[in-house]
């Protein structure tokens, strides 16, 4: 692996550009380099690992038990990548991915590194941009003191920082237990874990139970769940949540079994599962479908994780949530196919080499459906019933405003909603409001999220400064002149 810290040192084009250095991206880049492709792995973080293995080579948290064995497995994936002949650009933000009109079938990628922007070419692209937390819009979620559980995890992994004061963790999903156990082990004072998993989900998930019982999730998950439940105060069957406080969070209101209880706290961590991070794939024009089981928009991919745009593949949780182990396997599979598209592998050779990995992937994903069905959030946590709940934090748009526009102005989709309320037009590009806006429109108009569709996202997928853009070399020839 060759690290690059100066954008001018990047090649003009690569056989393959991989975006994101989580398990999928690291594995894809390593495999593709081993197959002889020229590979650039671009990632916006300072160190490899992505979200799940964030800072695995640099974390100040050295007590192995705090983050758990699964976390430290990431070190092997990073080590393998470091041995591969790929170029690695950390702190590098990819903000645009478009077809190259001058060379149809290949791509132009806009990226920024250390305050400078450049456009480079790629014959193949693998997006390994992973997942983001599903928005969890409850009243008061914009108060200081409320944050997502994932944000708390970033602080823990990258800087060894844990929330201060009395902490409440609320929501649902397998990661909720993991985070509660990691934070508790790191010394956080957790006063309650509020479980919003709807009780009815157990019935819905029952049909998928047999697969789950044979899956690797089971042993791991149960152990974690039992251990965490034994140590912490667990409140299940929570049907309503609101963060309260004047200038900052002082308490959380919990509705349960028809009664409301108040818990005093200093920090509230919200989490109701993860969904694919679709901004780059969406802006690149890849088709997305609404996945009913995971209840989110997911890029349309084939069994090689190729998207609807020829030459762009999507590996890892970005192609539908499957977890860290499956992400690494998906990255490998996508890399085999990239090599086949470039003529470096025959289809037969690709199939032969990928077969054991595909089999492992299937084993790895067994039982996923059970988790998807069990931890599907309750409707009131997807489309907030209270009209004054803010759903777009960038533009401060409320649930009531979206309902009103859908009803009174006949707004049928999120793209039109932008023109009326500006939701989705702030710097987050809809990451925090998109799923909720879709839910609210669907609910108000009596239709489904699949029918409503999602935002058409625009580049730059991550903000780029005017200065970076103004300094963009006018032609590739000019870049060469500078490099010389």
């Amino acid at each position, binding site marked *: 692996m060759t690290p690059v810290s100066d954008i001018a040192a990047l090649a003009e084009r690569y056989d393959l550009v991989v975006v994101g250095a989580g398990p999928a991206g690291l594995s894809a880049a390593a495999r593709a380099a081993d197959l002889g492709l020229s590979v650039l792995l671009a990632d916006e973080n300072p160190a490899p690992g992505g979200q799940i293995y964030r800072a695995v080579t640099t974390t100040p948290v050295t007590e192995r038990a705090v983050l758990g064995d699964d976390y430290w497995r990431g070190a092997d994936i990073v080590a393998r990548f470091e041995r591969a002949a790929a170029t690695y650009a950390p702190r590098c933000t990819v903000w*645009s991915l*478009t*077809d190259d*009109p001058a060379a149809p079938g290949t791509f*132009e990628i*806009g990226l920024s590194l250390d305050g400078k922007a450049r*456009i480079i070419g790629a014959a193949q692209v693998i997006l390994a941009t992973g997942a983001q937390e599903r928005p969890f819009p409850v009243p008061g979620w914009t108060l200081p003191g409320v944050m997502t559980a994932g944000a708390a995890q970033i602080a823990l992994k990258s800087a060894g920082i844990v929330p201060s004061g009395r902490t409440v963790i609320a929501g649902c999903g397998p990661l909720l237990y993991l985070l509660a156990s990691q934070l508790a082990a790191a010394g956080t004072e957790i006063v309650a874990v509020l479980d919003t998993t709807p009780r009815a989900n157990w019935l819905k998930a029952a049909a998928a139970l047999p697969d789950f019982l044979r899956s690797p999730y089971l042993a791991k998950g149960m152990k974690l769940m039992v251990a965490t439940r034994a140590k912490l105060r667990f409140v299940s069957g929570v049907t309503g949540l609101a963060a309260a406080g004047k200038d900052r969070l002082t308490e959380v209101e919990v509705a349960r079994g028809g009664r409301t209880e108040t818990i005093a706290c200093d920090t509230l961590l919200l989490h109701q599962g993860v969904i694919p991070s679709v901004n780059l794939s969406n802006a690149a*024009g890849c088709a997305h479908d609404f996945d009913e089981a995971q209840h989110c928009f997911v890029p349309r991919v084939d069994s090689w994780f190729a998207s609807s745009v020829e030459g762009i593949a999507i590996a890892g949780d970005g192609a539908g949530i499957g977890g860290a182990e499956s992400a690494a396997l998906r990255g490998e599979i996508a890399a085999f196919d990239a090599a086949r598209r470039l003529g470096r592998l025959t289809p037969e050779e690709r199939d032969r080499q990928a077969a054991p990995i595909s089999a492992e992937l299937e084993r790895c994903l067994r039982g996923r459906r059970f988790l998807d069905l069990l931890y599907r959030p309750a409707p009131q946590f997807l489309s907030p019933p209270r009209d004054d709940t803010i759903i777009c934090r960038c533009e401060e748009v409320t649930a009531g405003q979206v309902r009103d526009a859908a009803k009174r*102005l*006949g707004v*049928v*989709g999120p793209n*039109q909603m*932008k*023109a*009326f309320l*500006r939701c989705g*037009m*702030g*710097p987050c*590009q809809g990451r925090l409001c998109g799923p909720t806006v879709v839910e609210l429109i669907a609910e108000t108009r009596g239709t489904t999220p699949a029918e409503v569709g999602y935002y058409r996202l*625009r*580049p*730059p997928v991550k*903000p*780029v*400064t*005017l*200065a970076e*853009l*103004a300094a*963009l070399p*006018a*032609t590739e020839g000019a870049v060469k002149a500078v490099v010389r």
Partner: protein
Amino acid sequence: MTSGPRSADVIVIGAGIHGCSTALHCAMRGLSVVLIEKDHAGRHASGVNAGGVRQLARHVAEIPLSDASMEIWHRIAELVDDDCGFTSDGQVMVAEDEADLEACRDRVADLNLRGFRHEEMIDAKELRALVPAVSETCPGGVISRRDGAAIPLRATQAFKRKAESLGVAVHEGVRVKTVRRDGADWRVVTDAGDFLAPRIVNAAGAWADRIAADLGEPVPLEPIALMLMITAPMAAFIKPVVILRGRVLSFKQFDNGTVLIGGGHRGTPLRDENRTILDWRKLAISARTVWELFPIMRDATIVRAWAGIEGRMPDDLPVFGPSARHEGVYHQFGFSAHGFQLGPGAGAVMAEIIATGRSNVPIDGLGIGRFPQAH
């Protein structure tokens, strides 16, 4: 098959701001109207343009239509029950040097001779007062004080909703396959069945050449994709919309502090796929121009860039008015990336021509007959 009437007095093809405005004004004149749109109202150029409501620097052939339109813009809420986000803080054309300024003087003198008074010269002092952030080296410019800006998709949808409330049958998501004569009527064949009317309006924007060709009036329309980009909110520093005399740039700060940068650099339109490809190297040219002229913008962050698909004619003038070949066919397209301001007035004039056969607003020089192959 979609529900609603299959025949009407008028069928309008295309629900951009022009199609919606013409449909609305026809309905106000008591005509029954079917409005057909392949996507949704304002999906393309009408919904994603810069929102400029501009008379400044228009070709003289368009000024009468533009005048009619400006009257409507200044009372837009009375017409469509929505202010469309319209604000009027003027538009200013900046001269970057003495040669630019001389050209501005000639232009304003020519307009005055023709009896148009909406453009006025301003000196360096007034320019700096209106646009404090502009570079010290600019010697002056031209202002059109009644100009301003609106929110494009909101405006287009307001016209659609008002038209619908007056009985216009709006069919969105319905694609016109072909148009042909059927006795005294025109038969508009769509993927949702046929529609019949004695009069049809071709307001199909970047796709209008296909309808025109079907009617035996081929035109040299070029689909184009004009690129725009917008910044994160910045402290308020500019009220009017600013355009440059000599370079491709337009510039507008909204009330929420975001700054829209556009002006005319083009990406690649893929009109059969309903999408565009941005050209960041050209957007970088806009960024450099802004960097030079507006030092205050040097810390700005670009959060979004996009392009809409529009139809451009070789002379940059719209095709507006009755067909050169057929009774009952009217064209309203090819606005060449400056049609948004014209929409409200052009719809009123078109409805008048359809209903009465004539209009007092001159439209000379805009007919389809100016393209030889259309005869």
